[in-house]
């Protein structure tokens, strides 16, 4: 109950699929989604193999609460070895695909090998077919989803697919489901492309049951009411995640122009209020908000580009509404590239969803290329004649399309910031950790965030820890190690339930525990969830150490460690990682080299 107790394993090299029972010993230790998929990944492949080789495994994982009545039950995770970082990649997504996979009767879908020709997977409950993807290979995620629904005469089909970017092994290609939700980070879409797997199309009619329905519905009603009344939730519903950009600009933590600055003067033109404002011509960027499956928050943005804007004035195919700006997109395309044109940002965001690319990594890579262009290292001869100056909105939209179609300079941008900067002999220009581009928080202003970046298993990431309040209270490295460690464990637990991290403004682990406990067999307390989280985090660490990463990779770009913040709350300061990291390793029960001690591993039964 909660779990479907079934795993679907597909071998694309052999062209076979088989169902196996869920390993309940692992499910009891790692719960589901992120934790359970990490365990299965560790047991299904050698962490040393190349991420884009057939030997890598690609796991789509639901949690025990995915597809249930619990608020935000639409989450699934894609777990694999990431081609951007060489580390374990875990990207989760909402929309409706994850719940549908669960309804078809599977907790996990594990894909091995590599098909000789492009294929897609069609799953209708117990019927699993590896089908020819030739009609959609070379086309976008949007076209693929439309074609699959028409081809199978099934408008209720749920689709997760890659675009041309994923096919072309763009290092930060993502898996897009339901048109504009994505397992976005770390290049999980490139792994799918390397396997020649264009899409997974699912239709499930089996449903999900829970252990104690009466207690579960009571727990769901109570937690849902608490979430509904939460001011954080109300803010997300009305303004979306982009409410954050004003805070970060004001605080001086908004990475701007490839993190050379920490405040962006164009913020008011691309913030949540700008999205909601109706212009003199009657156009409004934001059309409505939208929920993922089972969600009581509904933070998703649905937006339209101004029809008179240069990007679409002659292109009717982009005039419809689609996924709008999140904070991370507004930061990555806006502040980090110095661009304040909200329609250009929205257009580039559409292209990210259409061709399946991570906007954070694309924006970070373009920003690095812009800095190199302004340094004179890259010239018009490299960029197909497009002047890559900071603030050039047209350059953003052209390069988004070129990268999405893997053409011209887009092929270089598709390498990601680290490989691009190395190619031009200027590695210091890449603002990445473990090869992954930073999200929208400057590590000098938000010190604990920096520690989280350095120690996140998938490289620079804002979704694996939460030291936000401590960071706003104190711009120093003092006292950040423990809250960073504790929040990493807490979030790893949340990521293993099948629910969304955005509930945590209203819920603590207690609220997750009462729902998991009623849905699943056994006793599930907040303490046990914390243990699942810590166990998962240590397992991810073991994967990365086995893959060849060391404590030397737990670092930050020199810009955060050596160059003082030019303005804002942290003016004159650098990140104090050297103070935080040893304290963090101690909190974790890891050696001074960042290796979990035998004592820690046996305590957690990793």
């Amino acid at each position, binding site marked *: 109950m909660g779990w479907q107790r079934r795993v679907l394993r597909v071998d694309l090299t052999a062209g076979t699929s088989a169902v196996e029972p869920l390993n309940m010993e692992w499910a009891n230790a790692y719960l589901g989604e992120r934790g359970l998929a990490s365990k299965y990944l560790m047991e299904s492949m050698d962490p040393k193999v190349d991420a884009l080789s057939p030997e890598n495994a690609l796991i789509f994982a639901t949690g025990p609460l995915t597809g249930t009545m619990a608020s935000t039950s639409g989450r699934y995770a894609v777990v694999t070895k990431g081609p951007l970082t060489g580390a374990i990649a875990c990207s989760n997504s909402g929309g409706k695909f994850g719940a549908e996979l669960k309804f078809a009767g599977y907790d996990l879908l594990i894909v091995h090998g590599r098909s000789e020709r492009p294929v897609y997977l069609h799953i209708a409950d117990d019927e699993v077919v590896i089908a020819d993807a030739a009609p959609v290979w070379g086309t976008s995620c949007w076209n693929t989803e439309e074609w699959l629904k028409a081809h199978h005469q099934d408008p209720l089909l749920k689709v997760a697919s890659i675009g041309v970017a994923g096919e072309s092994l763009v290092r930060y290609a993502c898996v897009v489901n339901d048109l504009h939700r994505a397992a976005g980070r770390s290049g999980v879409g490139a792994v799918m492309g390397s396997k020649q797997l264009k899409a997974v199309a699912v239709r499930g009619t089996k449903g999900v049951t829970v252990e104690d329905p009466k207690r579960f*519905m009571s727990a769901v009603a109570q937690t849902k009411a608490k979430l509904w009344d939460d001011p954080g939730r109300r803010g997300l519903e009305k303004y979306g995640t982009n409410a954050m950009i004003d805070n970060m600009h004001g605080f001086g933590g908004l990475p701007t122009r490839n993190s050379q600055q920490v405040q962006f003067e164009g913020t008011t033109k691309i913030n949540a209020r700008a999205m909601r404002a109706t212009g003199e011509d009657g156009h409004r960027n934001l059309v409505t908000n939208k929920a993922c499956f089972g969600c009581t928050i509904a933070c998703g943005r649905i937006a339209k580009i101004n029809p008179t804007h240069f990007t679409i004035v002659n292109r009717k195919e982009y005039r419809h509404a689609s*996924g709008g700006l999140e904070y991370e997109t507004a930061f990555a395309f806006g502040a980090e590239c110095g661009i304040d044109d909200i329609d250009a940002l929205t257009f580039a965001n559409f292209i990210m969803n259409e061709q399946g690319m991570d906007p954070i990594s694309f924006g970070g890579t373009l920003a690095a290329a812009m800095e190199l262009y302004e340094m004179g290292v890259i010239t018009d001869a490299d960029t197909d004649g497009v002047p890559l100056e900071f603030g050039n909105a047209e350059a953003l939209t052209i390069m988004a399309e070129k990268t999405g179609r893997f053409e011209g300079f887009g092929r270089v941008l598709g390498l990601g910031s680290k490989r691009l900067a190395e190619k031009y002999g200027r590695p210091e220009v890449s603002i990445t950790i473990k090869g992954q581009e930073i999200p929208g928080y400057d590590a000098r202003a938000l010190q604990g965030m920096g520690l989280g970046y350095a120690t996140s298993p998938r490289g620079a990431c804002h979704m694996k820890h939460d030291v936000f309040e401590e960071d706003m209270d104190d711009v120093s490295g003092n006292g950040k190690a423990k809250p960073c460690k504790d929040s990493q464990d807490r979030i790893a637990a949340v990521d293993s339930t099948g629910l969304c991290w955005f509930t945590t403004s209203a819920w603590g682990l207690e609220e997750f525990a009462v729902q998991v406990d009623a849905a699943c067999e056994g006793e599930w307390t907040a303490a046990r969830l914390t243990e699942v989280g810590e166990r998962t985090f240590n397992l991810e660490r073991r994967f990365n150490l086995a893959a060849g990463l060391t404590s030397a990779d737990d670092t930050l770009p020199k810009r955060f460690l050596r160059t003082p913040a030019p303005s804002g709350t942290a003016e004159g300061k650098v990140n104090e990682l050297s103070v935080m990291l040893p304290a963090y390793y101690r909190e974790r029960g890891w050696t001074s080299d960042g290796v979990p001690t035998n004592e820690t591993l046996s305590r957690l039964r990793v």
Partner: protein
Amino acid sequence: MHKALLIDPHKCTSCMQCELACSFEHTGAFNPARSRIKIFEFEHGARSIPYTCTQCEEAWCLHACPVEAITVNLATGAKEVDANVCVGCKVCTIACPFGTINYSADTGKVVKCDLCGGNPQCAEACPTGAITYVDASWTGLARMQASAVAAHGQPGA
């Protein structure tokens, strides 16, 4: 006094909690494939519309049924299918102009909204008020009130 489901698509976020609640009430499992209320998305996800049986007064399904498996619940006004009587002939599914009564291959019977005996779980579950259960004779009341408020607020009105 009968009550009716009132649907306001402008408030729908497409969260599917109505479908989860409906399927749970009727099957004991969370299973949108077995829900009697469905959400349809339009305009690339910009609009979402929940749709279910309107409980017609002169119900096509009821009149079409050759074995009188569909009867009126006098307490709620709902047209209910008696699964013990239904023979799965599907004539009602042809008769219904709205498509809101459907054959279930799992059970060999037809299923439709029964207003959950007077406590519709879709309305209970809807977080935004897109689905409410109101006086059947005054489904326009909220909109009428909103119009009155708008008119009152206009200059000179």
